[in-house]
């Protein structure tokens, strides 16, 4: 698996000031590699989420390309890109992302269900247990706490066994022990399972799980 970004940038209209546009992400080249945990840190508003979304096929860049094994994501039709997202990526977005009307297990099986794939029930069960969610399996998600929701989103991303894992501040609302649990799970995915993991985080602890660390400063990316 090869994910390569070339000349990738995102501009947004400026709300105030003289220039009409500003770079939320300056043009950059980046490779996300299998078997590696890449961690991206930076101050709030520096463009981390914007970059992650573009890499994950969720946000059309202003310029540049994102290629997955040579395929330009943003040259695909919506149908093809959606299918590719479903098959290749697992994304834990910033903010809540579980569907309240479904149970925890239903949430986790949903990506496969959308495309009529075989439901990864065993993998789901296994991740529920690893993330301490087993007792909540059949509970309606509406009643979950913030940290429980976050872990459900993580279990959902991992249970599909994607080649690419993107996580945007996955430990933001977790206690220390759960943070360690989640981060070591991500590391296992990369090191034991050969998946590519890309994590955005403020957590300085995360750095010790990283194979590669990037910093974002006002849209400018640098490798530490």
């Amino acid at each position, binding site marked *: 698996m090869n994910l390569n970004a070339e000349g990738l940038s995102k501009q947004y209209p400026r709300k105030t000031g003289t220039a009409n546009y500003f770079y939320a992400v300056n043009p950059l080249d980046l490779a996300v590699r299998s078997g590696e945990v890449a961690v991206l840190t930076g101050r709030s508003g520096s463009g981390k989420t914007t970059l992650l979304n573009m890499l994950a096929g*969720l*946000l059309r860049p202003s310029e540049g390309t994102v290629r997955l094994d040579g395929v330009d994501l943003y040259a695909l039709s919506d149908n093809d*890109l959606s299918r590719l997202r479903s098959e290749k990526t697992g994304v834990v977005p910033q903010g809540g992302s579980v569907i309240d009307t479904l149970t925890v297990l239903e949430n986790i099986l949903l990506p496969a269900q959308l495309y009529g794939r075989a439901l990864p029930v065993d993998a789901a069960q296994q991740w529920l247990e690893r993330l301490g969610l087993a007792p909540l399996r059949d509970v*309606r998600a509406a009643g979950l706490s913030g940290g429980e929701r976050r872990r459900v989103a993580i279990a959902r991303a991992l249970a599909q066994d994607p080649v690419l894992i993107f996580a945007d501040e996955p430990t933001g609302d977790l206690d220390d022990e759960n943070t360690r649990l989640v981060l070591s799970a991500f590391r296992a995915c990369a090191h034991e399972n050969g998946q590519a993991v890309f994590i955005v985080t403020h957590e300085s602890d995360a750095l010790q799980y990283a194979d590669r660390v990037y910093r974002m400063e006002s849209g400018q990316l640098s490798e530490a």
Partner: protein
Amino acid sequence: MKRFSLSVRSLLRKPGRTAALALLTAFLALAVFGGSVVVLSLRNGLNSLEARLGADIILVPSEAQSKVSFQNMFLQGTTGAFYMDASVLDKALEVNGVEKAAPQTFLASLKADCCSVKIQVIGIDPETDFTVQPWISRSLARELGNMDVAVGCKVEAGVGEIIRIYDQRCKVVAQLESTGTGLDTAVYCSMDTMNALLKAAEDKGVSHKIESGDQVISAVYVKVRDGYSIDTVNSQLTGRLRKVTAVRTRSMLTGVSDSLAGISRTVTALIVAVWALALVILLLAYALIIRERNREFAVLRLIGASRRMLSGMVLTESALCGLLGGLAGTGLAALALFPFAQLIESALNLPYLMPDAGTALLLAAGTVLLTVMVAALSSMAAACRLSRVDPGTALREGT
């Protein structure tokens, strides 16, 4: 279908929302189905009345108009009797342009034991009658025999029963199909039977005698030959016959068809108003609901749902809501309209004939289909807007 079950689940797990949307569409279905059934029934009633009257001109004694309103007599079955000499029939037949002429004789019964109300007995001449006889023939293969009667559908007497009119035993040999008019409450017999009944009535002190002649009739139904002006024939008849008034049936019905047109207009306006209102509410409701569910849809996009899938799910959900509402609304309208046809008829004061089961079902199916489509379409606008933005942006907005 996996995604279909997802839509169903989403509806079931938000029963309040689903019920509210279904209720909105139920109003649409109620208005359309209820309105069209009422209008159709009125139109049916008028058609049937026209067919039953079947004549271009009706001749009645001049004094009749002061005695009874024809319109009430034919529409509501108000009883009434007036008589003239039977020679009017022959004189009418001599007039140029008269194709057919048939006599009828009326007798208002006292409270008969068949019925809780007074009924109108109508004597016809099976040989010449062209208004009631064809209708009787549909229920009775032979002619009406002596002391035989055919009863309208609303007369509570079954075939084979004996009803007593002025103490005369009359045998019910046929019950006629509904016409939705006052004719449904009448009892029909041959002229011979009528003469016997008239005599019995006289014995009871109900006088119907006129100065001249023995043989009396109440009305002559005239059909004008093709190519002749009805008005010309009408004035010729009036000129020739003394103490007889010639009434154009059309003029009797214009009152009816005018109020029918009025009611149709009102009902149509009502349907349009309900639709406009419900449509606006529905569009707003979907806009709000989809905004409320923005996050949910953004998440679906995040985990791989394409724009088309998402629109499909929204459409499926709203179509199912529409189906639910359409069925409920149509069912409710049917429940309100069919058992209470009688009540509606007397409230409207117009001939009212319900459509038959086949037509009603077709109408119901059409209504449900329409509601499903409208529900689906009104969620479409919201569904389209929703899928225009990138999932990344949608996620940010939905937070």
